[in-house]
C-alpha cells in the first residue's frame, strides 16, 4: 500500500492502518533513537513517544517532506529532550556524589556497552565526543544513509549548514583518531 493512502487512512482513525504504519516505520524510528541515545531501553520508550506524537499530530502532516523525514524530525526532537533530561540527571547525581561522596548510580552511559573491537571503540568514542550539532549529521549521513537534503529537512537547517557541519565533524574526527586507524 502506498504511504499517502496509508496516512490518509490513519488520519481517518482506522486502527488497522495505524498498526500498519507502526510496523512500517517502527524499526527505522527505533534505530534512529538508538543511534542518538545509544541506549536500547530509552530508544524503545522514545519510539513509543514518537508514534504517540506523530499520530496525534498526523492531521498537520501535509506531505511537504517525505513522511519518513517528518517522522525523523519528531524522533530527533524527542531524543534531544531526553538527552537534556539525562544531562540534568547526571548533573544532579554528580552534585549529590560530591555532597555525600557516594559511588555513581547506574545511569545509561554511552560507554557502558561492551565494544569488542578496539578500532570501533575508538571511532565510537570520537563520535560521542562531537557536539550534538556535529554528531547528528554524521549519524544521519553514515548510519541512516540520509541524503544532505533529508538531513536538512529533519534538522530544520539549510543544506549548506549540513555540508559545513559534516565538513567540521569529519575534520574533528580525523584529528581525534590516530593516523594509523585511518590508513586504508
Amino acid at each position, binding site marked *: 500500500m502506498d504511504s499517502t493512502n496509508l496516512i490518509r487512512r490513519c488520519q481517518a482513525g482506522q486502527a488497522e492502518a*495505524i498498526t500498519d504504519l507502526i510496523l512500517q516505520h517502527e524499526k527505522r524510528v527505533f534505530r534512529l533513537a538508538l543511534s542518538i541515545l545509544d541506549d536500547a531501553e530509552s530508544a524503545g520508550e522514545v519510539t*513509543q513517544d514518537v508514534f*504517540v506524537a506523530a499520530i496525534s499530530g498526523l492531521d*498537520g502532516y501535509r506531505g511537504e517532506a517525505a513522511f519518513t523525514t517528518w517522522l525523523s524530525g519528531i524522533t530527533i526532537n524527542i531524543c534531544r529532550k531526553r538527552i537534556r533530561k539525562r544531562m540534568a540527571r547526571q548533573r544532579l547525581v554528580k552534585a549529590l556524589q560530591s555532597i555525600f561522596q557516594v559511588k555513581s548510580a547506574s545511569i545509561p552511559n554511552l560507554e557502558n556497552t561492551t565494544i569488542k573491537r578496539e578500532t570501533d571503540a575508538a*571511532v565510537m568514542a570520537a563520535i560521542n565526543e562531537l557536539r550534538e550539532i556535529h554528531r547528528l549529521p554524521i549519524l544521519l549521513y*553514515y548510519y541512516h544513509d540520509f541524503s544532505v537534503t533529508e538531513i536538512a529537512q529533519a534538522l530544520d537547517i539549510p543544506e549548506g549548514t549540513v555540508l559545513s557541519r559534516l565538513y567540521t565533524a569529519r575534520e574533528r574526527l*580525523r584529528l581525534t583518531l590516530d593516523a594509523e*586507524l*585511518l590508513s586504508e
Partner: protein
Amino acid sequence: MSELTHLQAKKFIQAAMHGLVSPIEQEALLIHLNGCVACRQYQSQMRALEGRLRHAMHARWDGQKPASVLTFDSLTSKMRLRSILKNFFNLATAGAALVTVVLLVVFAIQLLPAQEHQPVSEIAMTTEHPATPTPSAELMERYDLSPEAQLYVATALDIMESHSINRDIIEWPAFREEVYRRAYGARSSSDTYAAIRFALNRIEQNGYFVTPQTIAQENQLVELQPRSEIEGRLVGERIGYIQIPTTRYYDPEVYANAMQDRIRQVDGPQVCGWVVDLRGNTGGGIGPMLVGAGPILGEGMTAGFQYPDGSKAFWHYIDGELVFEDSGIFETALTYLKRPAYRLKHPDPSVAVLTDFGTAGAGEALVIAFKGKTGTRSFGQPTAGATVGSSTFMLSDGAQLVIITSYMIDSQGVVYNSTLRPDQLVWDLGQAGDQDPIIQAGVDWLLEQERCK
C-alpha cells in the same frame, strides 16, 4: 582554473564525497593531488574515515532490538492516558493557568515594547514595534503548547510578518499553523527554537536565529580576543594598503579611530593609490567600517538599502560622521571619531578593492560603496552573497532573531541581491605578504592609472 591551495583542495576533497565538484574543479583537484603528498594522504584518510564510521556504527547498533514490542493497543492506551491526564490538568489547574496567562500579559505589556522588539543591529534603522501578541488558549490546546511557548512563537512570527523582506509573498495564516505544528508539545522557549528556525529558513535565505547559549559563547570569544590594531602599510613606495576586517572583535569607536589612524600613518605625498582589502570580512557593523574607510571612500553618498515597497535609504559620509537619509530626509548622524576626520594628501584616489568568498554582509556593503565610486576596480573571488540589510530583535529569553529587511544598493541606486563578482578574477595561491597575487593584481592596475604614471 588556477592552482588550488591546500585548504581549497581539502574542501574540494570533501565536496567530492557528496558529488558537489564541477568537472573543472575535479580537474584542478587532480592536478593538485598529483603534486601534493599531504593532500593525497588527506584524501586517503577521508576515505578510510568514511569506512570506519559506517563499520563502527553498524557494529554498535545493528544487533540491538527494542525491549518491548510496540502495538496498537500499547500506543492507544498511552494516548488515552495522556488525554486523561491532560483533561485532569485542564480542570484542576484551569484557575492557575488563567492566572499565569494574566501575569504573562502584564509582563508582556510592561516589558516587551521596551526590550523585546528593540532592534540591536548597527545596520538597522528605526523599526516599528509589532503589536504585543495575545496568548491564544486555542493554539495552546491545539498544539499542546505552554503559555510561554505559544507567546514566544507568536512574538517571533509577528516580527517576521512585520519586518521580513519577503513578508508579502507568504500566506501567513497557513504558514503560522505550520510553524505552530512544528512546535507541537513545546513547554519552554527553547523547545520552540527548531520551529522558529524552520520559519526563518522558509521565508529568508539570509535571516538567522541565535540562541542565548551561542550569544554567550560569542561574547566570551569577543572578550577573549579584544583587538585594536588595523593592518596597513605601504606596498612599494606609492601604494597604500589597508585591511578592513570584520568589526566583531572590536569596540566600534576603537575600530573606526584605529582605521583612520592607520590610513593617516600610511598616507603620504607620494601615495598615488590604495588597496582596500575586504577579504575575510564577514560583516558586523556597517557604521564603523564606512567611517573608518571614509578618507579613502571620500565625502558623500556611500551605499544604502532598498525596502520591499521600493523606498530607498542611504548612508552619507560627511566630515567624519555617518548621516542616514531615508526617502530624502536626513536623520541620524553617527559619530565614532575622537579626533577630526583625516583627509588624504591626495583625495579621491584610485582604489583596488580585494574580495573573496569570506566577504559578507557589511563587508559586501563596503564593496558596493566602492563600486559606486569612479576609479575603482575589484580583484579576487566572488563574495558570499549576503548583500542585505538586517534588523536584530531580542526575544524574551535573550535569543536574537535576525530578519532581512532590505537589499543593498550603491550610490546610483543599483540593487545588489546576490554575490558580487570582482571585475578581475584572481585566485590566491597561498603566498603571503606582498607576493599575494591578489594584492599584486591590484597594485599592478593602480600603477597603470593616471595618478601613478
